[in-house]
C-alpha cells in the first residue's frame, strides 16, 4: 500500500505521479501513441520484442515515446521462465532501462498467465537488479511469493486480456490489495473508465490499460478519459467515502413538508 501523505507511486527508484500505465499494442497507427501519452499524462508504457522480418516498415516504436515516459518492456511470447529471462536481458541491454513486465503464457486459448513460471522468472530477474512487475492470475498465495521473490509490484488481471469485462476477479484482487506489502497494479481486462475508477476506489495503486484506449474510435480522448477516471477513483479512495448501505436514508429532511 502506498504512503498516503505524499501521494506518489514509487517503483524502483522512479516516482510516478500518474497511476495510469498504458501500452503500445493494437493502435490503428503508431501516430496515436505520442498524443495519447500527452492526453493521458501516463508516465509508463509497455512495449514488446520480436524478431524482425523484412516486410515490416523499419521505423522504431521507441521514437514515438517521449524520454520522460518510463519504458516497460514485456516478455510476451515467453512460454517459460527461461524465455522471459532472456527477453528481459535483451531489452535491458538494448537500452530500455531495467523495468520489466513479466508475462509468461502457456494457455493459448484465454491467454491467462502461468503463475509458477512467472514466479521463477521474477526470482531470477529481481536478483539481477530488474524492477520486476509480474502479470499474474489473482492468487493471494502467489502474490506473497512474488513479494518474497523481490517483485516491485504485482499485476493481477481484472479479466482476460482484451475482453473489456473489467474487474471479474474483484474479490480476489481485493484480498491481494488488503494483504500486499508491495503496490498492486490491475492489468488486463479493463475496458471502461468506470472499471479503472472502481479498481482505484478499492485501493489499487495503479492500473494498466492498453486495448480499451488503442481500439476506441478516438484513442486520444479515450486516454484522457482513463486519466480522469484513475484520478477520480484515487481521490475517492483518499476521501474515504461511506460504504454501501442496506437501508435508504433521505438526503432531505424526513418531515413531511407541512407536517411535524
Amino acid at each position: 500500500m502506498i504512503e498516503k501523505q505524499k501521494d506518489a507511486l514509487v517503483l524502483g527508484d522512479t516516482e510516478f505521479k500518474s497511476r495510469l500505465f498504458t501500452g503500445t499494442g493494437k493502435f490503428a497507427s503508431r501516430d496515436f501513441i505520442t498524443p495519447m501519452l500527452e492526453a493521458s499524462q501516463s508516465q509508463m508504457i509497455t512495449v514488446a520484442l520480436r524478431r524482425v522480418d523484412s516486410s515490416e516498415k523499419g521505423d522504431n516504436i521507441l521514437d514515438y515515446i517521449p524520454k520522460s515516459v518510463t519504458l516497460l518492456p514485456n516478455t510476451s511470447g515467453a512460454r517459460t521462465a527461461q524465455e522471459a529471462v532472456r527477453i528481459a536481458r535483451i531489452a535491458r541491454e538494448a537500452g530500455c532501462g531495467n523495468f520489466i513486465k513479466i508475462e509468461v503464457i502457456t494457455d493459448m486459448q484465454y491467454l491467462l498467465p502461468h503463475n509458477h513460471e512467472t514466479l521463477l522468472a521474477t526470482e531470477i530477474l529481481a536478483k539481477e537488479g530488474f524492477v520486476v512487475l509480474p502479470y499474474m492470475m489473482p492468487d493471494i498465495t502467489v502474490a506473497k511469493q512474488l513479494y518474497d521473490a523481490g517483485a516491485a509490484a504485482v499485476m493481477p488481471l481484472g479479466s482476460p486480456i482484451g475482453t473489456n469485462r473489467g474487474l471479474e476477479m474483484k474479490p480476489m484482487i481485493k484480498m491481494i490489495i488488503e494483504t500486499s506489502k508491495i503496490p498492486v497494479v490491475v492489468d488486463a481486462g479493463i475496458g471502461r473508465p468506470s472499471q479503472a475508477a472502481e479498481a482505484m476506489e478499492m485501493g489499487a495503486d495503479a492500473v494498466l490499460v492498453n486495448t480499451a484506449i488503442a481500439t476506441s474510435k478516438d484513442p486520444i480522448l479515450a486516454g484522457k478519459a482513463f486519466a480522469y477516471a484513475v484520478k477520480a477513483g484515487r481521490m475517492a479512495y483518499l476521501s474515504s467515502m461511506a460504504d454501501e448501505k442496506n437501508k435508504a436514508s433521505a438526503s432531505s429532511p424526513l418531515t413531511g413538508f407541512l407536517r411535524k
Partner: protein
Amino acid sequence: MQINLNGKNIESGCKTLMGLVSEQGLDTKALIAELNFELIKQTAWKDTLIKEGDTVELLSFVGGG
C-alpha cells in the same frame, strides 16, 4: 557460408554483421542484433565478423500491452 538467421538457415557471403544486416535490406534504426546469443551494439556491427555456423538474431521492439 551457412548461418542461422532468426531460426532459418541462409546462405550469405557477408563477412560482418553490418554486411548481413544490409544484405537483408533491413532499416537499422530499430534493430537489435544477437550473435550467438550475445547482444552486439550497433556501433560494433561493422567490426563484428561472422563465420560459418553462426547464429544471428535480428530483433526489434514492437507494439505490445
